[in-house]
């Protein structure tokens, strides 16, 4: 058992990449690791496993890594739990970091579970805040618990390393420092391809189905209050008029009203749009942690006391299915008025020229 030991020092971040393309969550975590490391007065290291991935190294330094441990070998071309876990555990046992951070992606969570079990240490999934107990020098990993009614701070007192995963977009992207450098530690770890039980045959990117909620400026999101297919139609209509995208809470996803790829929240995506409509969403923490970064939030709900109404910039009490059709109508009208006005103005500016919209 990896018992606590003063030998364990430093904050590590697992570098997630697919065929040399770095996952942005890695850089967000390097930024967060920097904060933790400065509280502990230790260094930030990153672990880069892959095949011909040297080119990633300068970026890691620029975003705050002090050391990059790299194992570059064709056997690590694609992520596989059985190869990455073994190489990662080898490095942990050799260099003994006190904290290990990974993105809460399908890759990061897959690896974290295997590594924590192998090292017999504690792992806290999907953290929304990380901090250090300065007195005891331990990691305070906070996450929404139990459907999200409360937050819990989890500690791993007696085992090292202390592990945590964090969803993309939860931590802020740090500002890079151009030409910043650090130490590269090149390691090898021999694994015979023939000895392995899994092979990645190919990667398939699903272009059309892929919903990039995280980049959307306007999101129209529905919850249980959307009730039925008709409600979903209204959501889509409002989203179309506003030039936004449709999303939903876990409640709507579980009722099969909204596709799970469009789920906002702790188990879905974290979003930061200019405008977020929460329609028929009561606002469990599970959901609201995913939209804290929204600039303006509109809540429409029958319950004036639900959490969503309390955090919204503007809220309306009422039945979503009754309000939505009217809201769509009024938006349609007023947005087309603005458009016409713009058109007129631009006509005027062009002094009789031909306007093409």
């Amino acid at each position, binding site marked *: 058992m990896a018992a606590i030991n003063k030998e364990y020092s430093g904050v590590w971040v697992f570098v997630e990449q697919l065929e040399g393309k770095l996952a942005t969550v890695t850089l967000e975590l390097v930024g967060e690791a920097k904060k933790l490391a400065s509280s502990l007065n230790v260094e930030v290291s990153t672990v880069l496993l892959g095949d011909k991935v040297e080119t990633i190294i300068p970026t890691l330094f620029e975003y705050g890594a002090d050391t990059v441990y790299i194992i570059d070998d064709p056997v690590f071309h694609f992520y596989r739990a059985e190869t990455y876990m073994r190489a990662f555990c080898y490095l942990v046992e050799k260099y003994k970091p006190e904290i290990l951070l990974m993105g809460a992606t399908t890759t990061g969570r897959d690896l974290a*579970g295997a590594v924590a079990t192998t090292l017999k240490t*504690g*792992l806290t999934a999907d953290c929304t805040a990380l901090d250090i107990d300065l007195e005891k020098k331990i990691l305070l990993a906070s996450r*929404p*618990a139990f459907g999200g009614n409360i937050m*819990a701070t989890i500690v791993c*007192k007696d085992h090292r390393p202390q592990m945590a995963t964090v969803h993309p977009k939860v931590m802020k992207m740090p500002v890079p420092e151009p030409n910043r450098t650090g130490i590269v530690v090149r390691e090898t770890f021999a694994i015979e391809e023939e000895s392995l039980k899994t092979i990645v045959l190919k990667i398939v990117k699903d272009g059309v189905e892929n919903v990039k909620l995280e980049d959307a400026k306007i999101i129209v999101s529905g919850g249980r209050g959307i009730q039925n297919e008709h409600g979903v139609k209204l959501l889509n209509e409002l989203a179309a008029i506003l030039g936004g995208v449709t999303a939903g809470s876990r409640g709507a996803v579980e009722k099969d009203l909204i596709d799970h790829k469009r789920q906002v929240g702790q188990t879905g995506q974290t979003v930061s749009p200019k405008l977020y409509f929460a329609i028929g969403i009561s606002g469990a923490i599970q959901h609201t942690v995913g939209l*804290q970064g929204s600039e303006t939030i509109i809540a429409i709900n029958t319950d004036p006391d639900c959490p969503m109404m309390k955090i919204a910039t503007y809220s309306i009490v*009422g039945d979503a299915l009754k309000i939505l059709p009217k809201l769509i109508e009024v938006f349609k009208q007023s*947005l087309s008025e603005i458009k016409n006005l713009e058109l007129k103005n631009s006509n005027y500016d062009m002094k009789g020229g031909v306007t093409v919209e």
Partner: protein
Amino acid sequence: MHTLVCVKQVPDTTEIKMDPITNTMDRSSAPTIINPFDAHAVEEAVKIKKKFGGKVSIISMGPPQAREVIKKCIEMGADEGYLLSDRAFAGSDTLSTSYILAMGIKKIIEIEPIDLVFCGKQAIDGDTAQVGPGIACRLNMPQLTYVEAIESFDLKEKVVVLHRKIDNGYEVVQSKLPCLITVEKDINELSFSPLTNMIKAARYNPIAWGINDFNADLSQLGLKGSPTSVRRIFPPEQRVGGELLKGSEDEVIKTLVDKLKGGIRKWQL
């Protein structure tokens, strides 16, 4: 083909209370169901049985009333169920839970070898997705998490080809059997149980195992075997809310649109 499915009984609602003294969850306060992801795992196992023959076994760790989820699995078409229940297991975190479940699975393997282990991708109460990989690790089986589709089985070569979800798509992976698969809901649609299964389930009593049925390492169980602990629970920090729009329905809609329309037009451009 002998498939084993790990299932968990979870609270149905978010009406969960925490014990303020021990900082642990009071599970008695909410109605319970089978973890929805696990239901899809059972469905997939039953589908495989229908296609290739064999048997589906269920394992669950939990209080005695967790036998209800095992009965639910029998209703869905499973053949046998094992319930690991003991006070010594209480308070286990994910590391300790995977130790206990792996111990149970090893005991089942002694009775009859297993070709495939299924889990849901995560449980809706904890959302950790850690127990599946933990069990795979302890059984020394390949782990294949977030599986959206099973493409094919080659029972002669003992391999499976499946689709594993990744960001922006999926990867096609081939794995040797036995392996452990955790499933997404997309993998199948739940079907209705035939009446005969319901009758069987009503009469069924799962095989119950406690601490005395194992030669367990007590230091790996329950609170003692759990490296993580809850330091503090607290109400989440919320952003400060704004304005509740008042007036008739038409009035509030007009007010809202007036407040937003300028910004929306700007973001659209």
